[in-house]
């Protein structure tokens, strides 16, 4: 589907590492090139034409994101450098001052490092306690299991929409409903979901939402923190400096700009933001529901083939996203990845930054195939053929 739009797909590779980053369509590359060639300039300086144009494009991208995730106001979209930056901003700028000793932070053991470590540190600093939602037999999150650990001291639940190893789609809407009935904030890591399925922040009612451009066809180094406007009033900027202040005279007299500008100190990644806007236009031109459906088809196709190979253990057979994690019996994950690389197949091997999954599976490492709409059944056939023959893997992995 739409393979001709992606220059890298013309280079004889099979790209199955979309969970790490996605490929970029020509339209996004051109948009970034256009900025650098034709109106490369700083924003917030409408004194001359090309700067005015840069500002317009930059803010237009914000509007595109707002529409894409169904936010109420454009001001609720804060540019960051990526999901990690977004989560760190909300943890350090909002929760660090709102958590007290004994308050509970609820996460899961299948979260990515960026949705674990900032919470660990804020827990150390405030005396708050980390609690984990018990996972069900498929390692999924259920509302019932969440209810088992929530107490009157629970202040925040922070989970991924889709996790990057198990790939389960979490019931975020139901979790938010329950959480809000109990005065609990919900932070959602959307890194693996926003470009893959319809995410609507008003429908789910999440309080904060973090995601990255590069995992949805956009450039690296750009991300978003969405927050409900009322909550953003209480978010403290983590970075202070140019562009975010109205005035500063003394430590007592610093006046910040409005939301969201006050959170975007320094010259931002202008080219990246503008390129991100184009990636959203591109996704819209295909349709997010069509992308989601295609990914599911490809996943089912891959799973059907993998389950027939006796030496393959799939970690997440029941998940609905394009993430498929598995191991080849008796062979270290990284050796399988090296072997596949000899056939120009890109997969990820390792713990995928989700090191707490070791407590779930008893081991941390796996091979991960993460699909996107431009993958094909024929690419999957090539992969499966190479995985079928264990002797061949053993022979060629070194």
């Amino acid at each position: 589907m739409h393979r001709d739009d992606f220059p890298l797909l013309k280079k004889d590779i099979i790209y199955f590492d979309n969970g790490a980053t996605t490929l970029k369509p020509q339209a996004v590359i051109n948009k970034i090139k256009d900025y650098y060639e034709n109106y490369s300039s700083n924003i917030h300086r409408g004194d001359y034409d090309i700067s005015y144009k840069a500002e317009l494009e930059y803010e237009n991208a914000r509007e595109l994101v707002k529409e894409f995730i169904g936010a109420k106001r454009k001001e609720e979209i804060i540019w960051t450098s990526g999901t990690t930056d977004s989560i760190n901003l909300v943890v350090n700028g909002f929760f660090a001052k709102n958590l007290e000793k004994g308050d509970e932070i609820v996460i899961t053991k299948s979260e990515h490092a960026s949705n674990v470590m900032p919470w660990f540190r804020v827990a150390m600093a405030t005396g708050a306690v980390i609690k984990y939602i018990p996972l069900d037999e498929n390692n999924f999150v259920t509302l019932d299991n969440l209810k088992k650990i929530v107490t009157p001291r629970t202040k925040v639940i922070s989970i991924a929409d889709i996790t990057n190893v198990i790939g389960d789609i979490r019931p975020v809407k139901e979790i938010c409903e329950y959480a809000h009935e109990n005065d609990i904030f919900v932070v959602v890591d959307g890194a693996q979901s926003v470009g893959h399925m319809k995410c609507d922040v008003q429908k789910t009612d999440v309080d904060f939402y973090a995601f990255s451009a590069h995992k949805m066809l956009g450039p690296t180094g750009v991300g978003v923190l969405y927050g409900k406007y009322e909550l953003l009033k209480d978010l403290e900027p983590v970075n202070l400096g140019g562009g975010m202040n109205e005035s500063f005279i003394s430590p007592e007299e610093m006046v910040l700009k409005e939301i969201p500008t006050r959170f975007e100190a320094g010259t931002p990644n202008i080219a990246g933001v503008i390129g991100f806007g184009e990636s959203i236009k591109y996704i819209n031109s295909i349709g997010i529901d069509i992308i989601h459906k295609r990914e599911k088809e490809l996943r089912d196709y891959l799973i059907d083939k993998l389950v027939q190979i006796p030496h393959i253990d799939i970690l997440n057979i029941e998940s609905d996203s394009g993430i498929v994690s598995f191991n080849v019996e008796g062979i270290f994950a990284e050796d399988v990845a090296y072997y596949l690389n000899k056939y120009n197949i890109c997969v990820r091997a390792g713990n995928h930054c989700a090191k707490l999954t070791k407590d779930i599976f008893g081991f941390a490492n796996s091979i991960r195939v993460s699909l996107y709409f431009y993958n094909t059944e024929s690419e999957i056939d090539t992969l499966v053929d190479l995985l079928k023959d264990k002797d061949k893997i053993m022979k060629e992995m070194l």
Partner: protein
Amino acid sequence: MNSEVKREIILEHFQNPMNKEEVQDDNYVLINSSNPNCIDNINLYILFDNNCIKDIKFMGEACAISTASTSIMIKNLIGKSLVDAKEYINNFYNMCDEEEYKEDLLNEGLAFSEIYKQSNRKNCALLPYKAILKAIDEYEKK
């Protein structure tokens, strides 16, 4: 040593690594080694005695190259004086760095003589060597 023999040595040590066991003895020095760009992660347990390496064991999760390299290194180092051990280690490094080295010192370590051709896997072969050098250095400082 032809490449088929090398492959067999590596596979044999990967599938049946020697001295792979946990140690619960305070006389052993524990040292961890991991590669920043991959997921290899091993613990070496080393028993020094009178400027000699009396014993080494290892545990961890690592690829075929790392596991085999660790198994072979341990086999070659147990019983060596620190002087001889360092000579062996330097020779192994030289081989991996495409510099001159003494083949006869390395025996099964020669299975990695072409590892320099795969720069991303050179670090896998060197993983246990980095750890043992650090441990020797710390031992000698005491």
